[in-house]
């Protein structure tokens, strides 16, 4: 996306930002996915340990707390990738007949609503984290502070917020220029 073309055509700023945002969204999603992979390995080790107690092995302590931690982080970190690719489930039955111009406005409304929800999620989740920090709550078995887990989620929520804001900009640009964004699969 960012390579210069021979005829002097340069990618527009919004497209460069879009490429960057996609890399950011993909990077954090992969981080979340790696968390899941680690949990899979830990669970297999734990289950094996539990099955082989007679041989002196043991399950991993607090394995389900690890699963919750990794799953919570993973889901938060997956939100930006889904948003930037417009892959949330939606019904295109009526809007498919409405023409490109109307659909670009609908895209904008969707993106603004999603941005507002992303903001609500990020801010309230952050305040929830401060609550947990203030109470000094820890998990039952592993005794790690719950606010750590919330902080991991907050990283995903923050990227989600930034990406949602970018999606609003992208939609405004699409209305202003009448162009579809060069990246992302707007309608599939």
């Amino acid at each position: 996306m960012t390579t210069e073309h021979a005829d002097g055509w340069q990618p527009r700023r919004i497209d460069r930002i879009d490429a960057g945002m996609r890399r950011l969204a993909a990077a954090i999603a992969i981080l979340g996915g790696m968390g899941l992979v680690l949990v899979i390995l830990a669970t297999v080790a734990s289950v094996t340990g539990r099955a082989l107690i007679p041989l002196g092995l043991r399950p991993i302590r607090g394995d389900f707390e690890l699963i919750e931690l990794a799953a919570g982080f993973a889901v938060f970190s997956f939100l930006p990738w889904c948003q930037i690719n417009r892959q949330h489930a939606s019904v295109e039955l009526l809007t498919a007949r409405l023409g490109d111009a109307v659909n670009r406005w609908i895209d904008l409304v969707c993106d603004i609503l999603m941005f507002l929800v992303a903001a609500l999620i990020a801010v309230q989740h952050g305040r929830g984290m401060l609550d947990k920090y203030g109470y000094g709550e820890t998990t039952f078995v592993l005794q790690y502070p719950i606010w750590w887990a919330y902080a991991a989620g907050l990283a995903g929520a923050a990227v989600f917020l930034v990406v949602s804001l970018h999606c609003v900009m992208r939609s405004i640009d699409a209305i202003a220029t009448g162009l579809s964004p060069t990246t992302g699969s707007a309608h599939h």
Partner: protein
Amino acid sequence: MSSQEIALLAFPALLVLIFLRIPIGLAMLVTGMGGIYVLNGSFAMITGQMKHLTWGTFSSYSLSIIPLFLLMGQFASLGGMSQALFKAAETWMGHHRGGVAMAAVGACAGFGAICGSSLATAATMGQVALPELKRYGYSGELATGTLAAGGTLGILIPPSVILVIYAILTEQNIAKLFVAAFIPGILAAIGYIIAIAIYVRIKPQSAGSRARAPYCERFRSLVAVWPVLVVFLLVVGGIYGGVFTPTEAAAVGAFGTGLVALINGGLTPMSLKRAILATASSTAMIFLIVLGAGIFNTFLALSQLPQTAAALVSDGGFNPWLVMFAVLVLYLVLGCVMDSLSMILLTVPIFFPIMVGLDFGLSPEEFALWFGIIVLIVVEVGLITPPVGMNLFVINSMSKETPMSATYRGVLPFVLTDLVRVAILTAFPAISLLAVRLLY
């Protein structure tokens, strides 16, 4: 205006948003928040709830099964399990009239046993089977119809993401639901095969022929399928036997399919990245809907609509079977425009309390299992009913030369067998409960 009337108005409002292409999860969130604001006159309840609801939902131990099952399906297709299944089914059944299409159904059923999602099953098997169906002279109509319908076996045959959600909503045992879904899932596959057999007799030109495969080739093809069987037995057997929790089973299953993919050379850093990103999209989509439904259902509970409706129906002295019929028709109509997960999340909290109060001659637990299976099947029919069947779009987009109208025609025989199966399973709860009664 009473709070129940406000809640009743929320449904048309929600549908308008959904039809304007607002993502379904987002539409539920917005409608639910708006409804709570109207009922309470302030946002205090929402802001308070959102402090911990998001993390609580995303990190839920029982819901964490969903990304794990999705990753398991991704690994299974990287590991070539979809090809192995189709190859095996094809060498055994391909020479019959319509046999390659029947083999596609069989392979979908097999893949459904290691994949909990219909869309993933349709997409994965579509990639494998569509080119082969074309090569053997099957019409685009029959090929796309078969695979769209076959894909629904992904959620009918356990493990099933939708059943996990139903189990959480109704506080039922996931293992028992998986066991109960097994026989109806097999019946579905048999129904589809019968539909193909009738279809190719009515339209003989829509299927080509294929030479009979020698037995040595047939048995060799079975060897490649054993990992599928092992993973399935490990996951479902492990849950049933109480060896693992369902979440652990999903992790073990993902490990198993991942290991097969690694050994087969299908799992590389590049393909792992793609598998994670595909899982990321589906997971985020599902959890946004779950979060939205959480807010929407908080609003409904606040309005006391579900309790009022349940009281109305149980005091009304209606025939339980008539109520059941009405509910099923409503599901089928909704299914034409909504996705299965949203339907389950929106309707089960309302319908389940109503239905469980009616007398079908079953214990509450047996009723919950039976109702779950029936609902699973009717929402799954929604995946293949025109105009908004997700599976139809997924498969049609993979077969460029087939017009959408042909896919709509091609899937009709399968929808018919679905309706017949719903009627039979509704009339005879014993079929859905047989496996559970035998095993527990």
